[in-house]
C-alpha cells in the first residue's frame, strides 16, 4: 500500500486558515466556503486572497482545489466565472462544484480544468457519474446517502475517481436563507463563529446558516483498511466550521493510522478512537455507508454500537 498516493484533504474558508501547521496532515485542500457568501473572509468572495491561498498551498507542496457556490442563481453566474478564472490563472488543480450548472459552465469556458463534484451534486448512480464525466468531471463525491456497495458500482462503471468522507460532520441539508438570522443576539457574520446545535429526543444536529449538519462526526477510521483495500485513495476530513485544532489533530490521527497501515505496524484502534473522541462533542456515526440510518455507528465487526 503506497502511502504517497493516498490523498487526505480538507476544506477551509479563509486565508487565515491556510497555514502550514494546521494543514500539515493534508495533501490537498479545498478553498472557500460554498454555502454562504457572507461568511467572514470567505475566499470565494476575495479573489486576491484566493490567488494568495493557492500560491501558499503550492509553496507547501499541496494541491489546491477551489470550491464554488453551491446553488448560484443565474445572476450570479458571471461572478462564478470570474472566480473560476482566478482559480485557473493561479494554478488551482481542480474546482469543486455542487451545482450541475457550474459543472457545465466550467466545462465550456475552462475546458481541461478538472472538476470534482461535491455531495450536493446528487450523484447517486453509476450512469449519472458516467454522464458527468462527459462534462469534465474527474472526481465525484457521491451523495452521502449512497452506500459503499453503490459507491463501488459508481467507481467501476463511471471510470471516475471517487472521494470518500472519512471523518467529520456531514451536510444533511442545504437551504437558501440563513437560519441564524432568526437570532438577533448573534448577528451576521459573527454568528457563524458560534456553534449552534439543534436537539430533539436524543437526536442532535448542527446548523450553520444555510446548511444542516450531522450532530455526530462520521468516523470511518475502523473501516479505513477496507476502504484502502477496495481501492479508494482520496479521503476528505470535513473541517469546515471547525476550529483549526480540530483540523490539525484529527488529521494527524488519520495520518498516523495511514502510516501504520502502510508499514504493516500494529493498528492502535482503541487509542486512536479515544483521541478522536476528544474532538467529537456528540459521538460518532458512519453515515449511510452501510445502508443504515445516517446517525448509527457500525464497527469493524459489522456491529451497531454506540460510541
Amino acid at each position, binding site marked *: 500500500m503506497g502511502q504517497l498516493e493516498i490523498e487526505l484533504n480538507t476544506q477551509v474558508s479563509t486565508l487565515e486558515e491556510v497555514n502550514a501547521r494546521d494543514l500539515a496532515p493534508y495533501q490537498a485542500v479545498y478553498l472557500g466556503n460554498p454555502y454562504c457568501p457572507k461568511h467572514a473572509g470567505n475566499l470565494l468572495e476575495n479573489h486576491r486572497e484566493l490567488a494568495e491561498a493557492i500560491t501558499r498551498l503550492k509553496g507547501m507542496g499541496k494541491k489546491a482545489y477551489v470550491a464554488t457556490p453551491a*446553488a*448560484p*442563481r*443565474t*445572476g*450570479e*453566474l458571471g461572478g462564478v466565472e470570474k472566480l473560476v478564472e482566478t482559480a485557473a490563472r493561479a494554478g488551482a488543480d481542480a474546482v469543486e462544484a455542487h*451545482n*450541475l*450548472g*457550474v*459543472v*457545465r*459552465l466550467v466545462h465550456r469556458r475552462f475546458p481541461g480544468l478538472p472538476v470534482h463534484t461535491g455531495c*450536493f451534486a*446528487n*450523484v*447517486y*448512480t*453509476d*450512469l*449519472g*457519474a*458516467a*454522464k*458527468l464525466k462527459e462534462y469534465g468531471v474527474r472526481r465525484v463525491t457521491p*451523495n*452521502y*446517502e449512497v452506500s459503499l456497495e*453503490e459507491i463501488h*458500482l*459508481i467507481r467501476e462503471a463511471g471510470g471516475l475517481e471517487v472521494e470518500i468522507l472519512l471523518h467529520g460532520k456531514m451536510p*444533511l*441539508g*442545504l*437551504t*437558501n436563507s440563513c*437560519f441564524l438570522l*432568526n*437570532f438577533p*443576539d*448573534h448577528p451576521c457574520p459573527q454568528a457563524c463563529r*458560534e456553534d*449552534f*446545535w*439543534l*436537539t*430533539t*429526543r436524543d*437526536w442532535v*444536529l448542527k*446548523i450553520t446558516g444555510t446548511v*444542516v449538519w*450531522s450532530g455526530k462526526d462520521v468516523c470511518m477510521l475502523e473501516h479505513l483498511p477496507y476502504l484502502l483495500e477496495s481501492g479508494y485513495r482520496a479521503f476528505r476530513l470535513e473541517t469546515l466550521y471547525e476550529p483549526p485544532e480540530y483540523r490539525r489533530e484529527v488529521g494527524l490521527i488519520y495520518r498516523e493510522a495511514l502510516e501504520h497501515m502502510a508499514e504493516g505496524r500494529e493498528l492502535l484502534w482503541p487509542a486512536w478512537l479515544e483521541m478522536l473522541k476528544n474532538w467529537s462533542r456528540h459521538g460518532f456515526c458512519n453515515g*449511510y455507508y452501510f*445502508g*443504515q*440510518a*445516517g*446517525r448509527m455507528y457500525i464497527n469493524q465487526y459489522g456491529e451497531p454500537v454506540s460510541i
Partner: protein
Amino acid sequence: MVELLAPGGSPEMVREVMEAGADAVYVGPRGWSRRAAAFELGDEELKECASLVHSYGKKIRVAINTLPHSREIPLLLKKLERFLSWGIDAVILTDVGCIHAVHRAFPELPIHASVGCNMTNAQDYAFFRELGVRQVVADCKLPWEELSAIRRAGLGVEVLIHASTCFTYIGQCWMSSYARQVWHLDAEGKNHFLGSPNRGGLCHRLCLAPWDVSCRHGTAAWGVKLRNEAFFLLEDIPRCLELGVSTLKIQGREYTPALMGAAVRLYRQLIDSCLASPRSFDPAPWYARLEEIKRLRDEQRARRTAELLRESIA
C-alpha cells in the same frame, strides 16, 4: 394553453380530480416516487388510471423521481416500457443517469425534470435540456427571473401553485434518513429506502420536530420548527399565465381525494375566469374560498406529520 396538473395519490383521487376539471394528473408507481407507498399506485392500478384519464381526453404523467440504486435502472426501463404500452404521456425524473438512460431508450417520451433536480440557474437549465429534458418543475424558492430564464432555455416551466415548501431545497435534504432508514426490497427487487425522501419517498419530516436551539451561551430557543410551510400562488396565477408557464401544479397525493377535488375545482374556475378576462382579476373572493381548503389541508397535514415523526423512532 396552460395545463392544470393534479395529484393522483389513489385511483379514487385520479377520478375525483378528472371530474373536477384537471387537464392532467401525475401518479407514482409504488416505490419509485417522492411519496410514501400508501400514496403510490400498483402497476395494475396505474394501467386502469391511464385508461380512465385518457377516457376524459386528458393526460397522465408518471413520477419516477426518486434516486435509485444503480442496479435498479434496468428495472426502471422495463417498467417504463410497460407504462408506455398503456399510453402514459410523460415521465418525471430526477437522476441524471436515469434521464440519460430513459432518453436514449425512449427518445420520443417527454421527460420532465423533477423539482428534486434542484436547478437554480441558466446553466442548469441548459445542462438538463442537453440531457433530453423538455420541462422543468421549478422549486418554490426560485424567483420570477428564473422562470423566465427556464423559458429562454427552450424548456417548459411547471410551477407549483398549491404545495408545501421544504426547509431545504427539495432534493437537498437527508435529515430524515439520518434519523431512520430501512432498506426494504419489494417483490420486483426495488429498494424502497424507507425514511429517505430522495430515494424512497417517505420523509419523516424531521424539520417539523420541535428543536431546541443551543449555543455556547446556553439555549437560544425552545421547540423551534425549521421553516416548512404551505405555499399558495393564488394571486400570482395571472403573472404565471403572462409568463407563458406551461403547467400549474397542485401538490397533494397524501390528502383525501375529496380535498384534492375541491382544490382542483377552485383553481380550474380561477384559471378559466382569469383567461376569460385577465385584466379584471380580483384575488379576494378566491382567497375566501381557499380558506376552507387550507383549513382542511392544514389539519390533514398536521395529523400526517405527527404520524411520520412517531414512525421515525419505530
